[in-house]
């Protein structure tokens, strides 16, 4: 999952970036509204965290412009002023949720998680597909009720595919959303992850949850259990 963080306080931004990278997000950050907006328009993010009080271009304007230009990824706003006028203005401008400073990192993680899954159309924190169930809060996979251990990267790939079910996801999209820019983007590595995932999800090859569309990418093909 690729995130954009726009926050002008250096210490807070650094802590946020660190904490979210530790949670296996790929994070880009900007310290002012203009740069942030440029990132938001230029790259494809899964979610953004935007502070309302930003230099050069305020958070509200950044959000409005992003929405006007058709960027639909969920946006979480940070506000130091705990009043409803600011919150409502931010949400009206196109943000999806808010967190008031000071906050606990867990709070941000939980809100982000909820936003990402809601953006994919899931109302609950657990993504259920047939026998597969991915708990996005605990970051845990169960197959037929039994916990299956996943590495961090395997989890990231599976979560991304599950949040875009039925959609063909190209290798480059996956790399872009799951790796840092300076990461070695060897698509062979991705193929290895997919192969391992298939083995773990479907050891007896009865379900075949991930299709390979030759030349295009991958598709998660198990229909979700709950209506989206």
């Amino acid at each position, binding site marked *: 999952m690729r995130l954009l963080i726009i926050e002008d306080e250096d210490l807070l931004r650094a802590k946020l970036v660190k904490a979210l990278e530790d949670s296996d997000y790929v994070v880009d950050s900007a310290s002012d509204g203009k740069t942030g907006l440029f990132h938001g328009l230029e790259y494809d993010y899964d979610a953004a965290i935007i502070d309302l009080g930003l230099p050069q271009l305020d958070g509200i304007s950044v959000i409005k412009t992003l929405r006007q230009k058709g960027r639909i990824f969920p946006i979480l706003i940070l506000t130091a002023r*705990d009043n409803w006028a600011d919150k409502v203005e931010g949400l009206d401008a196109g943000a999806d949720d808010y967190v008031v400073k000071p906050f606990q990192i867990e709070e941000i993680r939980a809100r982000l998680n909820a936003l990402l899954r809601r953006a994919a159309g899931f109302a609950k924190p657990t993504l259920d597909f047939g026998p597969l169930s991915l708990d996005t809060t605990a970051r845990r996979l169960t197959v037929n009720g039994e916990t299956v251990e996943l590495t961090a990267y395997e989890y990231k790939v599976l979560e991304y595919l599950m949040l875009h079910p039925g959609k063909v996801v190209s290798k480059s999209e996956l790399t872009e959303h799951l790796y840092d820019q300076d990461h070695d983007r060897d698509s062979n590595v991705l193929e290895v992850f997919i192969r391992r995932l298939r083995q773990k999800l479907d050891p007896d090859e009865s379900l075949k949850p991930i299709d390979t569309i030759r030349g295009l990418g991958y598709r998660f093909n198990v229909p979700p259990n709950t209506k989206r």
Partner: protein
Amino acid sequence: MSHPTPNAESRYSLQTRLLLAFGVLLVLFLGLAGLVLERAYQESVEAAVRERLQLQIYALLGVAEPDDNGFYLPDVQEARFSQIDSGLYGFIFDMEGRELWRSPSALNLSLSVADFSPPVPEVGETLYGGLDLEGQGELIWASYGTYWENQEQEFSFIVMESAAPTAAEIREFQSNLYFWFGLLTIFLSIAQLILLRWGLRPIANLAEDVSAIESGKQDELQGRYPLELVPVTHNLNLLIKRERERQQRYRGMLGDLAHSLKTPLAVMSAALQEIKSGGGLGPQQRQDMEEQLARMDQIVSYQLKRAVEANQSRLLVKPVEVEPMLQRIVGALQKVYRDKQMQAQCDVSPDTRFFGEESDFMELCGNLLDNAFKYGGTHIQVTARQEGRTLLLDVEDDGPGIPPDKRGWVLERGARADTVRSGQGIGLAVVVELVSGYGGEIRIGDSELGGAKISIRLG
């Protein structure tokens, strides 16, 4: 457009403006009136002269008797005709311009018919004119055309008199006129000045009153003011009162804040002491610190909210339209609580308004609705209606509700920050502060939906 700074003086004072305006008006009016009067008087004097000359002509006609050489006027009544250089002269000419008669008074005058222009009037017609004769000054004449029984000739009778007395009369009238009008101007100017002073006195008093407040000599405007100024002075007094209350409030809040932060600070300092004196950072100290940090955060955000809410002067505010405001907040909360798929029903009577600060109302509704969304299950009901300037607002949900034994505590005004606990605490505490700040009422009851029903009465 340029906006002057609030304290900039306008170029002319009220008094100067009025004085200038009235002054110009006065001069224009009196000048014009003088001109008209002077004109009218001159015309009436001239008309009188003409009439007099005409009468003299009739008098001459009455006594004239023609003879072989011309006319014979045996007994002219008017003595001035007989007295030489008297200033009243008579002539009779025939159509050829021959002089047939002249009064004895005119024996010294050297003039002929050519001096009168036009020289010959039609029969029955009177002509008037003036001429300047050496040694005699300005003269006014009247010439009357007539014909005589048994004579084929037509004649003109001319009477003239010196213009000097008339001119003197007019001059005297003029100087009288100017004298009285001058006097009138001075009198009116003084009267106007006095009236202006008197009329503008309350404004000067107001300025003095305000500066007395500025210098701390008094608390509010005390003078008695005329009807037109009462709304201003009333609002000014209200403003001053609110400002003073607000200052007190801020001072109180600052005290509360400082006071309530002392306890957690003391606990933390004690924990730090334990760590220093060899205990190290054990789980107990860590937990203490975390608890106290959370408490301090809570205190700060509660006091911040109170500070926002304390900004409530109800003067000169634009009334807030309730319905769009509620819709905005509900729309925003629907986003935040999207997972709940909350059914929010807003029943707002048309034209319902809140008479107060928009941000206060937003804060109030935001906190109430946030609680409703947070604790409600699937349904929320908001009802708003108006009675006069009073706004009645009910927010209901289908959540667990607030147990009766906790309601009193929740509603306690100004529950100290360090006693406010997380959860419903802060939001409702802020609502309570806001409502009491507006002198309103708040009640907690049970909703037909099954949860809490918060009823608010504002204004």
